[in-house]
């Protein structure tokens, strides 16, 4: 996912100010994807440039400015609450629909640092592969325990639960893979270093 697509998806729900959009983005991704206001602003400008997003008209009326006393209005005009709100164009809406129905592209799998490290360790002279695997497994189990703890404490917040579950399952896969690597090495007897 890119920030761009996430923002389009949020704007599909309702028109928003840039400030509000950034805040909503962080909330809805469970804080896993921090965004600074500069990034948010730049992304929105590009979306406008590409014709996917436009300024929402009648912004003043929509926020009930007509009923607001003058003094208050003057103050509010500088606050983020009254900054320009953005909404999707038809093209933007199409893009969001297409995003929901398209599977996420996989990253480049060969660039997994851990996989490469273990692959190198197997053939490197004098390296105890089982020790390399164990050190990583212990660290991964620590991370898994901490995610599990956070998830258990999270309780009812579904957004959070889903994000943490994803971390839990990804980390679990790593541990399982390490178990598998160890078993495979044991079977081929392919350790160059000592066993403990």
């Amino acid at each position, binding site marked *: 996912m890119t920030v761009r697509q996430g923002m389009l998806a949020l704007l599909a729900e309702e028109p928003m100010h840039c400030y509000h959009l950034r805040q909503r983005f962080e909330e809805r991704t469970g804080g896993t994807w921090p965004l600074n206001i500069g990034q948010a602003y730049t992304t929105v400008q590009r979306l406008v440039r590409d014709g996917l997003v436009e300024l929402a008209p009648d912004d003043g009326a929509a926020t009930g400015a007509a009923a607001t006393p003058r003094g208050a209005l003057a103050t509010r005009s500088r606050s983020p609450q009254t900054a320009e709100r953005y909404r999707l164009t038809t093209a933007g809406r199409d893009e969001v629909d297409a995003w929901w129905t398209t599977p996420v592209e996989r990253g480049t799998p060969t660039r997994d640092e851990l996989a490469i490290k273990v692959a190198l360790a197997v053939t490197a002279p004098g390296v105890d592969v089982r020790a390399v695997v164990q050190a990583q497994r*212990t660290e991964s189990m620590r991370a898994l*325990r901490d995610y599990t703890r956070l998830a258990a404490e999270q309780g009812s917040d579904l957004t959070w639960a889903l994000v943490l579950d994803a971390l*839990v399952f990804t*980390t*679990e896969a790593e541990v399982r893979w390490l178990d598998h690597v160890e078993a495979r090495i044991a079977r081929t007897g392919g350790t160059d270093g000592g066993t*403990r």
Partner: protein
Amino acid sequence: MSGPVLLRLHGVTRVHGSGEAAVHALQGVDLEVRLGELVAVMGPSGSGKSTLLTLAGGLDTPSSGTVEVAGEQIEGLDQNRRARLRRRGVGYVFQDFNLVPALTAAENVALPRELDGVRARKARREALRALEEVGLREVADRFPEEMSGGQRQRVAIARALVGPRRLLLADEPTGALDSLTGEDVMRLLRARVDAGAAGLLVTHEPRFAAWADRTVFLRDGVVVDSTGERPAPESLLAPAVAGPFGPGTGPSGPLT
């Protein structure tokens, strides 16, 4: 962890057979589990996990070294006292549940208490309370075959928890359960341990071992590594308040 040590294994070795055919299932294992602490043991098959659990529960005795439960050294006890310690102090949860098919859920749970010599009526009351604790009061009068796998496992846990048991031993308790039901089982074990028991869990599932305070890795009968105790609540809470996974603030460093 602040509770007193409930289970202590010191220099425990277990050899099966003798001479050339001798198999060293465990070699000089040291392990402590405190009240309020859940410890997971992981390792490949044949690493000694299950041997460790049977020794901790007094179902077997070490070839050398000592096993202490609540300050009592198991090897020093005669058969009767050891059996009593097993029944009263230790609760077991196994993968295959081991429920008696001809008994209802409540009768299954009450069984160990009746063996303890508790009167039937009181045993049933305790059983119902234990079933309530695992959220299964409504299946009390059903037979095992009338329950789902998840319910049977929870009944097995209720049976392990009934009465004043303080040492909880679990061997692959999430066995063939689906991921959410397995999670329910772990939440239950965790809650019981938090409420004042010591738990030792053998599993090959990292996701379930992750419910423990620490994980000990066993290989060829030797403890090769441990995650160490989990961080204090405050150190998990601080990043959670600041945005748990902001750069460098997460419990295990930055995410990529």
